[in-house]
């Protein structure tokens, strides 16, 4: 299991190469499914200059760690990778990724969705959209909170 909260970009291919398969000297052969999700900065209006992502150092790692632990237990995951970026991000930049490894496909998909739902409203990140006219904090959506109820 590994969690990174970082400013730097990440290489999805590199993150997924060998993910869930153990180490060369200690290979794991009981993983039948790997699912990954990558989130990007989206610009619906065409006016977005950049997004500023603030977080709460310390609590962020702690909160994500707790969410990951719960997912690992609930879906018996073989591995989890979470990367979430902060700082200045441009439209089209990657914001974050989650990857899950499990014996079966359903567990890997469900765990990835669970992680995403919880990261959205329980990991202490805040997004601010900055454009030529000014800036605005992104408001949390009711449906993001509702999404937690299905778990």
């Amino acid at each position, binding site marked *: 299991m590994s969690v990174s909260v970082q400013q730097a970009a990440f290489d999805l291919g590199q993150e997924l190469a060998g993910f869930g398969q153990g180490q060369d000297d200690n290979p794991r052969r009981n993983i039948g499914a790997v699912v990954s999700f990558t*989130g990007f900065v989206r610009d619906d209006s065409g006016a977005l200059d950049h997004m500023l992502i*603030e977080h*709460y150092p*310390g*609590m962020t790692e*702690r*909160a994500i760690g707790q969410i990951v632990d719960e997912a690992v237990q609930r879906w018996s995951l073989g591995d989890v990778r979470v990367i*979430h970026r902060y700082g200045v991000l441009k439209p089209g930049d990657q*914001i*974050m990724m989650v990857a899950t490894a499990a014996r079966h496909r359903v567990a890997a998909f469900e765990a990835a969705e669970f992680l*995403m739902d919880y*990261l*959205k*409203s*329980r*990991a*202490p*990140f*805040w*997004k*601010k959209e900055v454009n030529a006219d000014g800036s605005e*904090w*992104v*408001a*949390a959506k009711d449906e993001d*909170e509702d999404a937690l109820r299905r778990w």
Partner: protein
Amino acid sequence: MIDVMYFAWVRERIGVPKEQIETSATTVADLVEELRAREPRYEAAFADLSALRVALDQDLSEFNAPLAGVSEVAFFPPMTGG
């Protein structure tokens, strides 16, 4: 003494990311009332508690939670990760 931290628009309204506060408040709600009475910038930040979340020692908590033994309180809007 308690460390109080602010994030996102709460930080912008109050004007500092972190401060140390001498308080005898026994709950988070008491601390909020103390702060609101201090200066208009706190009143502006804490006007609508339903728009705020609180963490005690980096765990999400509630406004009626006791402050005994807590060293770090953080106030922020609902989180928008992912």
